[in-house]
C-alpha cells in the first residue's frame, strides 16, 4: 500500500493495485460521519464497438446497453440488492456516463459489510431473459421522462449536432426502440469484456481506517477468481473536425425559447497532465469570456438576453470534447450573435490580462478547496481523473503554474467557428 501526502491540501491517500489488476484508493477524512464507496468500470455508452473478451472479431451492441447493464446488476437470483443495502443502513445508487459506469453507496454504519455487498453484487452477474425483458418497461419510462425535459434535450441535442460519427452523439440510455433488442447474452458479453477488475477502480473516502479497509478488500478479492486480464480492444470511427449539423430546432411546450451553442474541441486525444492543463485553461478562458465578471455577461444581462438559467461549461474526455454556452432567452438570435461576437473579438484581440489570470487562479483554487468538502466529489472526480491518467490532487499545483500561453492554446482548440453548432428549443407557434 502506497501513501501519498498532499501537504497543501492536508489530505493523504492510500493506493494499491491488487494482483487481479483492481486499483484501490482510500482517503480518510477527518471528522466525517459517513463513508462513501464507489466501484467504477471504465465502460460507458460510447463503448459500443469492441472485441468481446476472448474473441477476435469486433461486434457492435445495441444502443443503451451499458446503462441497461447498470440497472440489471442490482437484480440477483435471491432478490434486489437495494434490500441488502437498506438492511445495513446504506444508501446505494449507480450511474452511467459516456465513459464510465459507477456503483456506489454511502453509509454511517457497517461499512465493511456494505463494501462486501458492493463488491459481491458488481462481481457476480446474474441475467436471465425474463429479468432483462422486465427491465425494458422501467427503462422505457426513464427514457420518456428525459424526453420531456427540455434542458436535457437541449444539452444532448447539441452534442448530437456536433458529432457525425462518434458514439458520444448517441443517448446514454439508448432509445425505447434500441433497448428492445437487448438480450441477457449481450449483457454477459459486455460484462465479461468490461468488468474485469483490471478495468475498474474502487474508491473509499470518509470515515475509514485505511489499513483495515485495504486488508479487507485484498482478502475479498483474493478469494474470487478472475481470468487473466486482457487489453480491451475498443473501436471508434474517425470524426470530422467541423460540426456535423450547424443548426437544429426542436419544438417543445416551454415558456421561453432556449438557445445553446456547442463548440467542438480539437484536442480530443489528450490524456494526463496535458489534458489537465487544457481542461483547466479552457475553463479559465470561458470564465473570463462568459462569467459574471465578463463584459459579455454585463451586456447580455443588461439587455435581457440571458436570465438565471445562463450557463457555460467545458467538457473533455478521451476522444471528444466541447464547450457550450446557453440560456433561456426571448432573443435567441441576438444572444447567438453576441456569443459569436465575443469569441471573434477574443481571437482578434486576446482579452485576458495578467491581473485577470491571477484573480481567476485564486478563484479556481478556492473553488477546488471548497469542493474537497464533498466526499462524493472526491470519489467521482478522482476516478474520472485516474481513467484519464490525471491526478485530482494535481489541480492546485497545475493551476498555480498555468501560463497565459496555455490559456491561448486551450482557447484555440474550440475557437474555430466551423466547429460550432446551434441548438434551439422553441415553444410552439401560437
Amino acid at each position, binding site marked *: 500500500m502506497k501513501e501519498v501526502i498532499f501537504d*497543501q491540501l492536508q489530505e493523504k491517500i492510500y493506493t494499491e493495485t491488487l494482483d487481479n489488476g483492481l486499483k484501490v484508493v482510500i482517503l480518510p477524512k477527518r471528522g466525517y460521519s459517513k463513508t462513501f464507496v464507489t466501484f467504477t468500470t471504465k465502460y460507458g455508452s460510447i463503448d459500443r464497438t469492441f472485441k468481446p473478451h476472448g474473441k477476435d472479431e469486433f461486434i457492435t451492441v445495441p444502443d443503451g446497453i451499458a446503462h441497461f447493464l447498470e440497472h440489471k446488476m442490482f437484480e440477483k437470483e435471491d432478490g434486489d440488492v*437495494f434490500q441488502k443495502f437498506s438492511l445495513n*443502513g446504506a444508501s446505494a445508487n449507480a450511474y452511467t456516463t459516456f465513459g464510465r459506469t459507477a456503483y456506489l453507496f454511502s453509509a454511517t454504519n457497517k461499512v465493511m459489510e456494505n463494501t462486501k455487498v458492493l463488491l459481491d453484487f458488481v462481481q457476480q452477474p446474474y441475467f436471465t431473459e425474463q429479468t432483462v425483458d422486465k427491465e425494458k418497461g422501467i427503462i422505457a419510462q*426513464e427514457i420518456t*421522462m428525459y424526453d420531456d425535459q427540455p434542458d436535457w434535450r437541449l444539452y444532448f441535442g447539441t452534442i448530437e449536432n456536433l458529432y457525425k460519427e462518434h458514439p458520444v452523439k448517441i443517448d446514454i440510455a439508448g432509445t425505447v426502440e434500441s433497448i428492445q433488442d437487448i438480450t441477457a447474452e449481450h449483457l454477459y458479453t459486455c460484462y465479461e469484456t468490461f468488468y474485469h477488475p483490471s478495468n475498474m477502480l474502487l474508491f473509499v473516502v470518509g470515515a475509514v481506517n485505511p489499513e483495515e479497509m485495504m486488508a479487507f478488500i485484498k482478502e475479498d478479492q483474493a478469494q474470487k477468481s478472475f481470468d487473466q486480464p486482457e487489453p480491451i480492444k475498443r473501436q471508434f470511427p474517425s470524426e470530422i473536425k467541423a460540426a456535423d449539423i450547424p443548426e437544429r430546432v426542436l419544438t417543445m411546450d416551454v415558456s421561453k425559447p432556449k438557445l445553446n451553442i456547442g463548440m467542438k474541441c480539437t484536442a480530443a486525444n489528450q490524456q494526463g497532465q496535458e489534458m489537465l492543463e487544457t481542461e483547466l485553461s479552457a475553463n479559465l478562458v470561458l470564465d473570463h469570456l462568459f462569467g459574471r465578471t465578463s463584459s459579455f455577461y*454585463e451586456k447580455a444581462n443588461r439587455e435581457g438576453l440571458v436570465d438565471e438559467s445562463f450557463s457555460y461549461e467545458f467538457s473533455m474526455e478521451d476522444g471528444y470534447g466541447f464547450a457550450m454556452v446557453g440560456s433561456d432567452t426571448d432573443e435567441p438570435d441576438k444572444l447567438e450573435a453576441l456569443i459569436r461576437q465575443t469569441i471573434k473579438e477574443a481571437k482578434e484581440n486576446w482579452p485576458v490580462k495578467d491581473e485577470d489570470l491571477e484573480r481567476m487562479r485564486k*478563484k479556481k483554487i478556492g473553488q477546488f478547496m471548497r469542493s474537497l*468538502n464533498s*466526499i462524493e466529489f472526491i470519489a467521482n472526480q478522482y476516478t474520472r481523473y485516474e481513467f484519464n491518467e490525471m491526478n485530482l490532487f494535481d489541480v492546485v499545483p497545475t493551476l498555480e503554474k498555468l501560463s497565459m500561453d496555455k490559456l491561448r492554446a486551450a482557447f484555440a482548440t474550440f475557437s474555430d467557428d466551423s466547429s460550432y453548432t446551434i441548438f434551439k428549443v422553441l415553444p410552439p407557434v401560437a
Partner: protein
Amino acid sequence: MFNKTKLQKGVHLYIRKTEQFKTVNVTIKWKAPLEQKAASERTVLANVLEDSNAKYRTQSEMRKALDELYGTVLYTDVSKRSAEHTVSLFAECVNDEYFEGEDIFKQLWQLIQAVVFEPNVKDGAFDQAVTDREKRNVRDRIRSIYDDKTRFAQKRMLEIMRPDQPASVSAYGTEEAVSSITKESLYQTYEQMITNDLIDIYVVGDIDESEIIEQIKKYLPFAARDVQKLSAKTDTYSVESVKTVREQQDMKQGKLHLGFTTPVTFNHPDYNKMQITNGIFGGFAHSKLFMNVREKESMAYYANSAFASHYGIVYVTAGIDADLEEKAVQLIGEQLTALQQGDITEIELNQTVALLENSIRSANDSARSQIEIYDQYKELDEHFTAEKLIEKWQSVTLEDVKEMANTIQLEVVYLLSGKEGTSK
C-alpha cells in the same frame, strides 16, 4: 451541536466550531409571515441585494471582489416552511490556514456588511434598472416551472388540494405580484426585513467563537425586534370524496401526483412515527412503492412518496404511461392499504429506520445540511441532536406504523399528460 448567542431580542447567532471542513460557512436567515405579495417582494429583493450595493456598484465589481477572496461564494435565496417565508444569505470562504497572511474571513464580514447594510439606494428607492432586471428574472423563474413537468404537476396538485394556503403558496410569489413591485416598494420591503424580521445567523467552521461574536456585533449591528413565531394552521381536513383532475400539455410521460391528508404534522407528537410510515410506503428503494410499482409491475422508473410534514400532506409521485393511470392509482392505493392493514414486516421497519438514521448522520458531513436541519429541528428542541431523533425512530413499532397509515387519506389524484395523439 450549535452554541446559541442572543445578539438582540429576535436576533440569534448559532455557532458550530469544527475542523471538519476546509471552509467556513455563514448563513443569515430573515423570517417573516408567508404571503403572496410579500414573497414576491422579498424574492426580487434577495436578487437585488446579491447583485450589487453602494460599495460594489455593479455585479461585476461585486463578483470580482469575491473572486479575489479565493472564490468566496455569496448568494441569496428564498424558501418557505410552514407559514413562514425566509430570505437567506449564504456565504462560504476557504479557511485562512491555507493561505498564510490573508485575513479572508474578516474581508468576508466586510462584504456581507456591504450586502446587508449598504444597499444601492438613493432617495428611498433601489436602482431602477437593477430592479427591472431582477423583476424580470424572478418572473421568468416563476414561469419556468412550466418547463419542468414534474414540478409543474406538483404545484398544480398542491393548488388543487390547498388553494391559497401556505402549502400551495410559492416562496417566489406570483407573476402578478412581481409585476406590481416598484423600486420604492422594494426599499420599503428592505427596511421592513432588516428591522422587523426574526433573524437567525449560523456560522460553521474552524473559527474562534468569541472573535466571531465580536465581528458580527461590529459588522452586522441588527437592532432588537419583537417577533412572534408563526406556524401553519393545523386544521384537520376531512375528505368527503377524492378529487380527480386531469390536465394536458404537449408531453410524452404521464405525471401522476397523489395528495393524501394526515392530521400528523411536524409539531405533532407522532411526527417521528409518520416519518417511518412514509419511509416504508415510498421513501426508499426498499419501499413498497418502489418494489411493487417499479420492480414488480415495471410501470415506472420512479414511484415515491414524501411527507410534507409542515402541512400534514403525504404525496406520491410517479412517471407512468398515461393510459395506465387507473391501474397505477389502484396499485398505489393497494400499497397504502397494506400498511393500514398491518401488512408490514420487521425487515421493512428496520430498513427504514436504518436509512433514516443514515441520512441524518450523513447530514453531519455538510455544513449547509447541519445548518438547515438544526434550523428546522430547533423549533421543537433547542438541544436537538441526531441521536435523540434516532432514538425516537428506533422506538417505533409495527403497530405504530399501522396506526399512522390509518390516518392517511387520499384527497387528490392529479394527472398531467400529453394531448391526444402526442402521448405515444
